[in-house]
């Protein structure tokens, strides 16, 4: 949010950002249709028929970044953590070579941490847990 007027969204010219998103969606649908053609030569599996034959990865299937994300976890963090997230965001976007939603980044980072309880415990020790 910023002070003053926001973007003018009701004038006739579409903004570029949306065009890019639309194109991305159409591409993913094209990929999906192409994939489905290849797949249909093989036998129909139960899993694919549940999905009407479509099995797009989650981020291409959902309507919005909040789809399926009904739970909200509020995080209170210290300032270095915010900067650290920005650095991680840049690094991950460099690796993937595409824009990543902050919500996706955070949930992915959280899931990865769940696979590394020892390192999470080390971090907590640094903060003074397990202090004899």
């Amino acid at each position, binding site marked *: *949010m910023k*002070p*003053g007027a926001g973007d*003018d*969204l*009701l*004038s006739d010219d579409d903004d570029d950002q949306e065009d*890019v998103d639309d194109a991305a969606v159409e591409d993913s649908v094209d990929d999906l249709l192409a994939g489905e053609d290849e797949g249909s030569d093989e036998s129909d599996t139960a899993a694919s028929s549940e999905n009407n034959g479509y099995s797009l990865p989650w981020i291409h299937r959902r*309507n919005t970044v909040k789809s399926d994300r009904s739970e909200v976890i509020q995080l209170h963090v210290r300032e270095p953590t915010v900067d650290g997230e920005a650095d991680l965001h840049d690094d991950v976007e460099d690796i993937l070579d595409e824009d990543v939603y902050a919500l996706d980044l955070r949930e992915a980072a959280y899931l990865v941490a769940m696979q590394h309880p020892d390192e999470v415990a080390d971090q907590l020790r640094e903060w003074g847990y397990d202090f004899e």
Partner: protein
Amino acid sequence: MLAYSVYGEAGGPGKTTISGSLAAAHARHDLDVLAIDLDPQNASLSYLLDVDDDREDPDVDHLVRHLIDRPKGSFEDLIRTTDHGIDIIPAHNALSGLDDLLDRVAKTANDMGEDFDPTTRLREVLVEFGVADRYDVVIIDPSRTEGAGLYNAIAATGSLVVPAEATAKGKQSVIGLEQLVGGLEEELGGIDVGVLAVVPNKVDKRSGTQRTYLQDLQEVAYPVPVEIPIRGALFDGAWEHRCSPYEFVEEHRERVPDRERETLELIDELAATIEAEADL
């Protein structure tokens, strides 16, 4: 063109009253105003401006039908004009099911490989209607709760006027709003949502604690051009007679107290400040 939604967290202190008052103030500045009522509750802008007679009729065409791409008529025919020259798209009871309806249509469209974004539908129908060429000001009174009605409002207007209480909740509600809007900005592909004004409402200058909270609100990073004092009689009178507070004092008050005249001048100043942001 100037477009904004009037929304604040914490129950929206005076959200609809401020929407209706600002719509009237802009119209008095000779601007063409379109108000859009997206609040499914009965005490909404359509009630205040006395255009809510069709809200329960299942057979009429209404905005929700256009948002889910099943219109019964032209978009233009949705617009009513109040006795005082404000164009308004009234609320309909179908708004209470808007989230479900949009989700269902989105799912069907998705299955068919079609593009349907349930958050930007209002923007799309307004752009298709050519709203920017027809009106100077668009004001949306969104639903009080988070959901499609609120998201569509913000995704269409891009700007907000934020009523806030001069209480401990006031500053927190602005901070809560920042989180909500931040997520939405990202979801909409990085748009910038602007805050035209934070409007402390129901302010009692004699209250010491309120003065502290008002200072808190002044410290938020957004413009706070005016503070609207507590004016029960003026605003209750407007609701009772179903008109803006301007018409209430002109048509239903024999003698207008100075304090009410001053409050109307404050609303006028607020409207003018907001208009200046859009170079109107």
